């Protein structure tokens, strides 16, 4: 039984070249799989082509618009489809801004710390609730689920956080939204599926719950852990609502998304009769190019992170390997 655990851990971190799963790489079809039919391949190809087209065309429009001159945008009367006059003006304007650069650091900090905190809390909680018939798990699950549907509202929450001294504090951006019950439920559902045999084997072996979580459950559910970490990370990266509540006037503490929002919102939201009525400096609404450049800038980090997450999708097949 000790052997099981060792194999387990080794397999979790190293690649086993002989494992059939690996042979899927580079489109090599496993020997047992029948060759695809032409019709099936064509249908699949068409579906994916369609799916890609409806995503790529808007992306193209966004990128082209972000690179267009104001003249090109005004000639198009909105988003630009065919490149007319191109410029990097929007990007250089943003990247030259010192506020954007410090905000980038803040964003990375909040995302990193927040994701670690959230993952720690959620993984523990999800495992704590995943063992069948454990003490109080139904009550605790109900306690969790209720918060998904019932909320006291904006102002009471604000008063609680400020009452705890959270106004202007970093933790106010993390702790109030650190727990996503949805994410815990997803994690829990995967953890519950982790083979009972393995766990019981380890238990007979003298492993406690902490050890089981660390040595068996986590290594066998790397894909879902990566997915939930992505959900949390993206959540922190994109969040700005708490910033607006708890540090609305401390611009040096604003994360990137909030600073970018101010680029997009320039001149907007002022009532029509007053819009742009205050002097002439930067009074006009934000150029569309700038707004689209913001969208592109938001997408870049995600494009960079996603491949790292993807590789965890092919490693969660070890339970069966042992059983078999």
């Amino acid at each position, binding site marked *: 039984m000790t052997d099981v655990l060792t194999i387990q851990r080794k397999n979790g971190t190293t690649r086993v070249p002989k494992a059939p799963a690996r042979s899927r790489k580079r489109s090599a079809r496993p020997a047992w799989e029948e060759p695809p039919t032409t019709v099936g391949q064509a249908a699949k190809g068409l579906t994916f082509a369609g799916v890609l087209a409806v995503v790529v065309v808007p992306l193209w429009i966004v990128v082209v618009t972000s690179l267009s*001159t*104001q*003249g090109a*945008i*005004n*000639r*198009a*009367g*909105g988003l630009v489809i065919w490149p007319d006059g191109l410029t990097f003006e929007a990007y250089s304007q943003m990247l030259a*801004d*010192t*506020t954007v650069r410090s905000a980038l650091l803040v964003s990375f900090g909040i995302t990193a710390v927040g994701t670690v905190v959230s993952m720690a809390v959620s993984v523990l909680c999800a495992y704590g609730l995943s063992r069948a018939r454990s003490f109080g798990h139904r009550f605790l699950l109900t306690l969790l689920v209720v918060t998904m549907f019932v909320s006291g509202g*904006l*102002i009471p929450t*604000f*008063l609680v956080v*400020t009452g705890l001294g959270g*106004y202007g504090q970093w933790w106010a951006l993390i702790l109030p939204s650190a727990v996503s019950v949805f994410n815990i439920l997803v994690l829990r559902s995967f953890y519950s599926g982790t083979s009972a045999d393995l766990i019981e084997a380890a238990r007979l072996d003298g492993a406690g719950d902490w050890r089981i979580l660390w040595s068996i459950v986590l290594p066998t559910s790397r894909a879902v852990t990566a997915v939930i970490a992505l959900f949390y990370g993206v959540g922190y990266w994109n969040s700005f609502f708490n910033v*607006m*509540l708890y540090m*609305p*006037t*401390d*611009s*040096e503490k*604003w994360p990137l998304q*909030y*600073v970018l*929002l*101010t*680029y997009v*919102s*320039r*001149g*907007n*939201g*002022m*009532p*029509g*009769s*007053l*819009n*742009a*009525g*205050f*002097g*002439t*400096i*930067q*009074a*006009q*609404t*934000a150029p*569309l190019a700038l707004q689209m450049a913001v969208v592109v800038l938001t997408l870049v980090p995600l494009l960079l992170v996603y491949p790292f997450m993807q590789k965890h999708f092919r490693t969660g097949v070890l339970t069966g390997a042992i059983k078999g």
Partner: protein
Amino acid sequence: MAIEWNRRRFISAAATVVGAAAMAPALSACSGSPAPQTGANTEPGLRAALPAYLPNTAIRPEIPSVAGGPDVLTDAGFLTYPANPVATVAGVPGRGGSYTAVTPLWGTVPSAGNSFYQAMNKALGVDLAMKPADGNNYNTIIPTMTAAKRLPDWIQLPAWWNPNFNLGGLAGTQLADLTPYLAGDKIKKYPNLAAIPTAAWRTGIWGDKLYGIPGFATGLPLAGIVYYRRDILDAKGITADQVRSADDYLNLGKELTDAKRGVWAFDDVWTYLSPAWGVPFRWKVDNGKLVHKYEMPEFLEALDWHYRLATAGYVHPDALAGDNANASPRFYAGKTLIQGGGAGNGAWNVADHESGTAATPGYRRGAFNIIAADGKSNPQLFLTNSTSELSYLNSNLKPEQIEELLAVANYLAAPYGSAEYTMVNFGVEGVHHTRVNGVPTPTDDGKKNVQAQTYPFLASPPQVISNPGADVVTKDNAAWQAANAKAVYKPVFWNMNVALSQALATAEAAQAVEDTIKDCYHGKKKVSDVQAAIAGWKSGGGDRLKQWMTDNVLQKYGTGQ
């Protein structure tokens, strides 16, 4: 998203008579919470609280103001900038106090402690920490601040959000009473503040006491006017003078719309054109009786006309789909030729000129004159509040601190072209701006840090028309104002603050009716649907609102005209 919503919200809810939720008097009397606010002002109380008016004549505009009806005055126009700005304040106004100030900013926030802030602190003699907050979320930020009693020393609260902020409740509890410092001749200590017209100060008075310092005051505040692409219509031989009635507008719709080429005559114009039927902002008094606009046959006629305009296919489909965000690009691209927009500097300014000419070199914005829908009656358009930008001081400040900040406000309110104005709006010469052809032109540093929505939002001189580099805009705008000032009238309850209970404020906002109205002028609902919604509104609170306004405002305080 919130963006568009805010704009609509303003049009439907803000302006002449602002409602603010008051707590139930019975309960507050025994619970020890702050005394209920009546909000509205009595005539003698108002007279006692209002500051004296001493216009500043130091700097003469090239295009002087023209008087229209009572209290109507066009904005002065400037074609040049004084070469040697005169100083209006001797020495530094401050005595070294430390304060924080919060303003809404719809744009990129300057970095904290930047060179311009430092220069300003030196010029003002105070340590004033400017903390701009995102304008789009301002109506969410402020109620949380006031709920937690965390207002800064000095704050700007735009008047169109008075109901959201419950300004009637804040005045006297969290905001400082400035009456003892500014009423009557006391304001002479602050000559630049004294040069702000009396009408604008009225918007800062709640319950006979003065709280707000008005900025960007104008003698010709309008809900907006109807603009057109002058370059394109000129080429077709159409001039503004030819459009004298609603029928003329319909004919233009037919003539100018060419859907196949992607050109529609109109963008949204309801807010801007409906007053031509004699529809007031909200109330009018007929034979001594209060009448709501929903009860007027003229209102339904106006609505019917706009319904026909939409269903005839003369309005751009994106406008009918509620996409206001791209209204300007549509206009620049020539996809729409007639649009509504802010008056004064609102839409007609140098930035607009630059954007337009970037798309079409000959771009020129023109405005149609104020008309009467039938083409025979006297053209008329109501005034809106003399200012929408007011700043307030925190009630926790000590008297000498209030005096120090008022002296700072006096500096910020220095007239156009003065040395202080140059400093506040353009920064230090050589650092934040340089003179190009005599006009102060911002450097990169200036563009980033010197912003109109920081210091000027705390206090500023009356509005002027000035578009350095685009004199055609200044001349067109001033000419339109001069030609149309006579058609502008003071509506009932003008510049009056009224604190409404929550239920009455809900009735005043009439969300269900306003929604149906919008669907109607977008061609999706018939006028009869609006009538049904109005009937529901009347029984569901509208009649009570009218009765309350009659008893508590009209009978007690008059019409404010």
